[in-house]
């Protein structure tokens, strides 16, 4: 498919590191990069599930492996990015979604607080489920 004619007339050049010029741009790109760490977290959890499925010895091996310094460092970094994702996603939701109750719009801030409370409850439940 060829580009429409107007698109060929003017194409501003954008530097590769355009997102370093402003703090908000940098934060935007960091938020986008969180996708890599979300994917890694899923892979890591699936490796845990696989280890548990294979038996006690394999689970123990996973625990030993998870304590390797480089892996802990990677997971601390991942946690920071996953938290960045979570906070930015919650804060974004009221802007992307209008929730009405009896014809009245719920204020964005209230909606965000409700999601944070949900997050807290889900986290507490999962914590309890894992640690018992």
């Amino acid at each position, binding site marked *: 498919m060829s580009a429409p004619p107007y698109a060929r007339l003017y194409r501003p050049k954008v530097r590769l590191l355009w997102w370093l010029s402003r703090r908000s741009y940098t934060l935007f790109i960091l938020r*986008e990069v969180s996708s890599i760490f979300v994917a890694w*977290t899923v892979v890591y959890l699936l490796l845990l599930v696989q280890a548990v499925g294979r038996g006690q010895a394999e689970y123990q091996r996973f625990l030993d492996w*998870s304590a390797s310094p480089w892996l*802990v460092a990677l*997971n601390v970094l991942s946690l920071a990015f996953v938290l960045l994702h979570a906070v930015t996603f919650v804060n974004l939701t009221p802007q992307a979604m209008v929730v009405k109750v009896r014809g009245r719009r719920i204020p964005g801030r209230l909606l965000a607080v409700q999601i944070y409370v*949900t*997050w807290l409850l889900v986290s507490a439940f*999962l914590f309890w489920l*894992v640690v018992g």
Partner: protein
Amino acid sequence: MAAEPKRTYEPFVWLMFSGGGVAAALVLPVLLFLFGVALPLGWISAPDYGHLLAVLGNPLTRLGLLGVCALALVHGAHRFRYTLHDGLQLQRFDGLIATVCYGGALAGAVAAAYLLLFAF
């Protein structure tokens, strides 16, 4: 004006992106904190094998986990596609990038389904 580009699948991907974003935000931080940081560093003693096996033995746990994993992977793939697209100015390769990103997410989701539904 030129014909609209083909975009029939985009709303669907954005829907999955949002769903995956919510699932990832609610579920992943606490699990990564526990299994990636708190247990390895000995802040909390590791749950014993029998307990985890019982938790994962429940089909509801595995179905829930599968949903979270699959959606979060699609979310990640979609966002990573646009990270390359905008962050690294790779608009030219969008077709290839989209194929690799969504293909990777699909492969991951299939692997997760196999692991959680059949191999467990």
